[in-house]
């Protein structure tokens, strides 16, 4: 029986420039009927991150994961192309690959023995002679999402055959992906092995907000800031009108993508040394810095090495280039539960010394054992616990920081959060991504 939404006919996001009002109705974080609408109106029309080329370097390499609720097989075919298949047998539907990663010559459905090659073609049907003459193996290959496209190693799928091209969809986000990749002398980055795969008992959109919300840093991550300070990381008192040690801005990038773009104080593996990296790491960081300058020139090298960026690619991909680079994607399981998958990204051919700094720096902040992420998880779960039974009495969350300011918006303002929510609201009202 379909779940009826209690909030089906009134506005879920109020965006009123005249009264400088911006509010989000809390039912959108709680109501199972809204999640069902989201699955169609958001996840089935947007480009969704499936994986990174570097995860499947050789023909036959595969990873299985879930994207927009669908089990997928992310794999490299016999021609060396990255492919995405729906992990379901064309006969009765069982998943044809049940391992999380590996290399396969064939994908074999153990239920009745149908098998598929690396290109998804049906190549084995036990007792094929019992099928009628019209049965065509060629028409029963593994199904693919209607669209699979990639940008600089990041592979996306779209379940809408008529979606705009990925390149166009990414809009202003491409500039920020390019900035991340400029860390690498070859221009290529790779997912480093080791997956952080965890649940948060909260609505998925809360992690979108949290992933690039610098307003929460001072209180949620007080212990992390204390750790930096005690470790000798220089943090100046905030300038007038600021909350954080350095200047940072929030920007909308089109199609619901947005970013915070900050002057760095927290150190960067490429290439700004802080005492936490240790004296022994200093020469390597200096060498990386010199390489950047030689390759990109002073100005671009400074842009790469002295700023950090938290990027949200609508709806559910986060690339945070801060204490290290993390790629994070997340999908709703239910209105109040999400499954998160996060990885570290590093330059291909990085030296062992630089790689060790990158991974160690990652762990100071990010991930289930980091000094920050567990407190983010706690915050999101506290929000969910706070709103799940009170949203009828306290229906609105206010999101107006910076709204009255002309021009530049700070990273601690909420323009970038509003950019996400505006796009979400457009799509939920039937619009498609695009101008």
């Amino acid at each position, binding site marked *: 029986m379909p779940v009826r939404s209690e909030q089906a006919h009134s506005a879920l996001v109020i965006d009123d420039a005249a009264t400088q009002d911006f509010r989000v109705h809390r039912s959108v974080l709680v109501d199972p009927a809204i999640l069902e609408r989201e699955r169609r109106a958001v996840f089935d029309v947007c480009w969704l991150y499936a994986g990174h080329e570097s995860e499947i370097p050789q023909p036959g390499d595969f990873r299985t994961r879930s994207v927009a609720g669908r089990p997928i097989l992310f794999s490299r075919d016999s021609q060396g192309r990255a492919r995405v298949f729906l992990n379901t047998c064309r006969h009765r539907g069982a998943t044809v690959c049940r391992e*999380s*990663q590996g290399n396969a010559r064939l994908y074999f459905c153990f239920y009745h023995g149908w098998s598929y090659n690396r290109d998804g073609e049906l190549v084995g049907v036990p007792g094929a002679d019992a099928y009628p003459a019209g049965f065509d193996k060629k028409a029963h290959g593994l199904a693919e999402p209607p669209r699979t496209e990639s940008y600089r190693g990041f592979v996306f799928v779209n379940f809408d055959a008529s979606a705009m091209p990925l390149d166009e969809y990414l809009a202003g986000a491409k500039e920020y992906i390019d900035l991340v990749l400029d860390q690498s002398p070859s221009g290529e980055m790779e997912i*480093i*092995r*080791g*997956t*952080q*795969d*965890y*649940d*948060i*008992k909260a609505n998925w959109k809360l992690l979108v907000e949290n992933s690039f919300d610098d307003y929460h840093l001072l*209180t*949620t991550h*007080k*212990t*992390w800031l*204390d*750790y930096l300070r*005690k*470790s000798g990381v220089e943090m100046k008192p905030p300038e007038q009108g600021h909350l954080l040690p350095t200047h940072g801005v929030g920007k909308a990038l089109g199609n619901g993508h947005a970013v915070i773009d900050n002057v760095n104080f927290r150190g960067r593996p490429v290439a700004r040394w802080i005492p936490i990296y240790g004296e022994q790491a200093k020469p390597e960081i200096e060498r990386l810095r010199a390489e950047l300058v030689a390759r990109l020139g002073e100005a671009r090298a400074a842009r790469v090495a002295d700023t950090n960026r938290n990027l949200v690619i609508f709806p559910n991909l986060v690339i945070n280039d801060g204490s290290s680079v993390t790629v994070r994607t997340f999908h709703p399981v239910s209105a109040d539960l999400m*499954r998160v998958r996060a*990885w*570290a990204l590093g330059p291909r051919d990085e030296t*062992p010394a630089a*790689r*060790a700094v990158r*991974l*160690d720096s*990652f*762990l*100071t902040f990010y*991930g*289930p*054992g*980091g*000094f920050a*992420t*567990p*407190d983010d*998880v*706690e*915050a999101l779960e506290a929000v969910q*616990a706070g709103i799940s039974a009170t949203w009828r009495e306290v229906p609105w969350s206010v999101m107006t920081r910076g709204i009255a300011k002309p021009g530049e918006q700070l990273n601690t303002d909420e323009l970038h959060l509003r950019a996400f929510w505006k796009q979400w609201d457009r799509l939920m009202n039937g619009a498609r991504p695009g101008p």
Partner: protein
Amino acid sequence: MTPPRPPDADLRSRVENFLYAEAALLDAWQLEDWLALLTEDARYHVPSNDQPDTNPAETLFMIADDIHRLRARVARLQDRSAHAEFPHSRTRRMISNVRIVAQTGVEFDVEANFLVCHFRREGRQRDYVGRYRYRLRRTGESFLIARREAVLDAWELGQLGSVSFIL
């Protein structure tokens, strides 16, 4: 009359006593006392669930602390602003199947199974199951911890969410 015990049983018994005492300190949140059990070159690791047998210089772990990071971790956990562990969780550690798997001079490699039950308010319970890999260094009649690795058995961290305490 009790028959004399073979030397390895005696050693294992002392190792077990040490591990039980350590677990009691952690369950009691006596984290400063726990730090005193570690060597200056101690490491504490929790690998990512999908890469249990690798090293943190080339693989993403969840935790890969040296003694400085561990002291910072303990300082953080004792701060009211370590929100994921405030109010402090209650934990109860069950340690079993203790085996001494190697001995080199004064160092012993020890493996053991664990079940750590972690309780937050409102009925939130998480059960962490896995095995420990220790390197213990003998000091007189007792030991110090030179390496402590907690390897989780679950394929993904999943519903465990975080490893926000000393596992």
